């Protein structure tokens, strides 16, 4: 079952005297190295490792695909139940080259589902059709072998529908769905929901999923909020519908770049025009629905009643109706106010927390900075007192190092505030004598378990 390549070259006639001779052999083969990549390499390995001829492998694969298909179907997944759709002769006679005008859903037997078909359903439908219409299979049963054109139609249909972007392009202009199938507006108000629901469900298919679920039309019991949300959504409808599928082809074989560019530009303009028209179409449609929506009429009447009630307030008999719109309005306002306050409070708290965090950070940084300063002052106390050796003496490097190291050690053991205390103490006693500073430092060392004794 290898793919058959159709070549347009006509074979000549064999002379009447023709007799086949002994075939001679092909040139010697050469060594090569396969790159271990791609699904065809995997297929090559499958044949090699299982020691299968091309034909044996075909049979095994066909069986496996069939089983897989049955498994998916047999899973009883309702979603995949795509049924069997008879193909009309017109459909079977289609020329695969005319794929642009082909109804891809009909070809795969999905006319009933159309844009509602899931990717899995498309996959299963394709496999079903492939098994049914494979040229090899047909050759056996009908003898009409020439005809693999419908098989090619199937391949095209699958190519378009299995690619999400191309499928959207096709769905955008799916001729089997009539955009104009819209109520006239003169129907009885009771029928509003039945008549308009399918219209909006149909339009909803173009909603970009990122905009969340599409609100439904609802029914006579829908709240005002729901109804408002519904119309809001459709007035601001974000549609992915696009019209590149209708692009005119650039004249094949024309290598005139200008011509090509011209056509491309024209296509772009056409797409934009169609898109604009489509947006206008939807707006008109929503306008129309809104104008005949019995709920809107009811809401208006209620509003009017509320106004009347307000006017009549204080007058005798101006009692509130059970569904007092004024009260409801007040209630709504109160709620809104509450929410607003809660939000404000939360925002304020957030702000405060942030400020507190910032403050803490600042304090810490300040302490750190201070610590450096404190340490420097302490060091100055040591050096300006000539390392406690008395005037005139020259401190050795060892002494200097030992004392400064010990100071480092002390500082690192203490909290910033303690360092500050130590500095204050040292400064105070330093006024009396240098040795007292030394004693303070030594005490600090001992208190912190430092045993190097540079200040002892």
């Amino acid at each position: 079952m290898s793919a058959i390549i159709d070549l347009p070259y006509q074979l000549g006639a064999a002379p009447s005297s023709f007799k086949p001779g002994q075939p001679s052999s092909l040139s010697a083969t050469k060594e090569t190295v396969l790159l271990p990549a791609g699904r065809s390499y995997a297929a090559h390995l499958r044949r090699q490792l299982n020691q299968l001829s091309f034909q044996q492998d075909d049979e095994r694969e066909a069986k496996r695909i069939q089983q897989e298909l049955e498994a998916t179907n047999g899973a009883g997944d309702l979603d995949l139940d795509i049924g069997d759709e008879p193909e009309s002769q017109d459909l079977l006679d289609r020329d695969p080259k005319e794929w642009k005008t082909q109804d891809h859903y009909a070809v795969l037997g999905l006319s009933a589902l159309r844009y509602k078909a899931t990717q899995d359903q498309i996959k299963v439908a394709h496999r079903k059709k492939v098994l049914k219409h494979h040229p090899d299979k047909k050759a056996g049963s009908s003898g009409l072998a020439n005809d693999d054109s419908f098989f090619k139609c199937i391949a095209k249909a699958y190519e378009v529908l299995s690619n999400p972007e191309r499928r959207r392009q096709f769905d955008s202009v799916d001729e089997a769905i009539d955009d104009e199938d819209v109520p006239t507006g003169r129907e009885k108000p009771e029928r509003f929901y039945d008549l308009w629901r399918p219209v909006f469900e149909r339009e909803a298919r173009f909603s970009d999923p990122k905009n969340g679920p599409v609100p439904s039309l609802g029914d006579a019991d829908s709240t005002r909020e729901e109804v408002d949300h519904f119309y809001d959504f459709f007035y601001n409808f974000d549609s992915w519908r696009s019209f590149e599928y209708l692009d005119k082809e650039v004249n094949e074989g024309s290598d005139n770049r200008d011509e090509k560019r011209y056509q491309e530009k024209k296509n772009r303009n056409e797409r934009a025009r169609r898109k604009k028209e489509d947006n206008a179409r939807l707006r008109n449609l929503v306008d129309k629905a809104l104008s005949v929506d019995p709920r809107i009429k009811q809401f208006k009447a209620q509003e009017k009643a509320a106004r009347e009630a307000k006017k009549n307030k204080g007058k005798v008999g101006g009692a509130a109706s059970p569904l007092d719109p004024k009260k409801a309005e007040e209630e709504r306002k109160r709620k809104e106010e509450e929410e607003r306050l809660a939000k404000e409070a939360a925002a304020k708290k957030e702000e405060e927390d942030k400020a507190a965090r910032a403050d803490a950070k600042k304090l810490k940084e300040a302490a750190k900075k201070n610590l450096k300063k404190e340490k420097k002052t302490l060091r100055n106390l040591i050096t300006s007192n000539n390392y406690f050796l008395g005037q005139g003496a020259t401190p050795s490097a060892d002494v200097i190092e030992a004392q400064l190291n010990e100071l480092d050690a002390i500082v690192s053991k203490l909290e910033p505030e303690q360092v500050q205390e130590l500095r204050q103490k040292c400064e105070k006693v330093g006024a009396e004598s240098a040795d007292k500073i030394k004693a303070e430092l030594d005490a600090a060392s001992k208190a912190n378990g430092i045993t190097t004794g540079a200040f002892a």
Partner: protein
Amino acid sequence: MSESTGAVIGINFGQSYSSIACINQHGRADVIANEDGERQLATRISFNGDQVYLGNQATAQLVRNAPNTIDRFVNLLGRSFAEITEDEKKRNSAQIIDNSGVPSFKVLIDEKETVLSAHEVAVKYLRSLFLTAKDFLSGVPIAGAVLSVPQYFSTAQIEALKKAAVEAGLIVLQVLTSPAAALVAYGLTSPQGLGQLPSHPDGVEGAPYPAGKELDRNVVVVDMGGSSTDVSVLAARAGIYTLLSYVHNSSVGGSSVDDVLVKFFAKEFTKKTKVTIGESDKRAWAKLRNEAEVTKRALSASNSAQCSVESLAEGVDFTGSVNRMRLDLLSGEIYSKVQETVEDALKQAGLEAAQIDEVIFAGGSARLPGLYERLAIVFNEEAGNTHLTASIDADQVIARGCAINAQTITATSGELERDYILSLPAKPASEIPELKAKATSRPFGILVPAPKEASEAVEKQVVDGQLFVTLIPAETPLPARRTFRFPVSSSPALLSFAEGTPSVRVEKIEAPQPDPEDEDDEDDEPLEPEEVRTAYVKPDSNKIAEVSVELDASKKVEVEVIVNADGSATITAREEGSDSSKAVVAKIPSA
């Protein structure tokens, strides 16, 4: 595959840029974006204090913090310091140092001088790619990865790369060479399913291939990256790929284009502001280079682009603009170098441009429109024989090919094949005995009478009133099977099979003289006679086999050819759809 087994990813770990692809819910490969929305991630790490910058964030550090920024480290993996050329050592970032023979970098990390080997740097970087993929896949476990390497990587380099990837936490399914990944990304010539033809790289709307060229194509992959350009010639035969030649040119790449742009802008700057950028003002040059690269990329998408640098030199700002035409003029020599590399590779493969069916663009710099235009001339795209393919963005092809192959490996129905592929050693294909195979050495075809209403291109392939239609070209790995269908003029039809020699017909065509009246004829250069080169196969005078088939003359003849691994072959011819018992069979012995 299904969620239970996890996702697979493909990684293009390039010397200049890296990218990651995964398989989306529609089963297609997508290059994923990191949290900054970037898909092409500079292969670069920078250390600043206790901060680590990876990818494009590290690029800005080249200006302020060059000595602590590590660049171009992928090609150092698996090599000793002694093997590294002076050219490779030259860099405006952290220098390569010799740490007992291991190429390494000395950088300040958190104020501490730290020596990192190329391996350690690679692990750090790959780990960040792994995290990016994990983030993107939010929770779905990553079941395996395929990584790409340049074709010239040695066993030691491939092993080192794999080791780094494993250390970074990846499950490495395979290390694949870039040209193979590029072909896989397109599934080139690979049947889509049982009994189906391959898909066209440009999709359903792609210009159809010449008749009979669907399964067997000679392919050139032009991979122009940042620091080098690689050209490979491959045989794609019903989805099985073999390498015919390969040329690595490290003297030309995207950074060569940056160089000429930097020079151009520097001159503009001086002209506009009278300020000259000092030779040693590394900061200014680094700033300008980073911006020039951004400008260059913008030119691949639009006709003109701006370049602005705040306080470029001596506190003076720069704003300049450049259009595509200017860039192409500046890059003319660079394109010529790429062209020479292509010609070199063709020569090594023993093929001419006219004998190439497909040119695939890979690597970030292959997005340059000027390069495409140049190669369209080299391969005479207008003649319609060679198809130039760039429908997948060139900077994504390799990562996507890797992801697809990862998918193929994990999703294959047979454990036998999967285990076999997984057990292949991490080595260049040419050093793996398991990958050795036999292939045809010459084209095998059928001779038909010169078609009456053929296109010009076909007419030029006619020799002595006969057309050699290739059924199985040279370089087809064995065993191979092809099936064709031909119309017939009458019954019995003659099927005459032969081998032949691939040839190229050269014709000179006088160019039409430009119309002297036409004042605004844009290209007024004197037109030279044009050379038209057409590939064809010159049949041997000896036939391999001749058979006749009786049939209903309104039907077609179906011919199946199977060539076995030992070089023997079986030809089966019959009226289409008829019983195999009625088929005419010719058995061709092995040589």
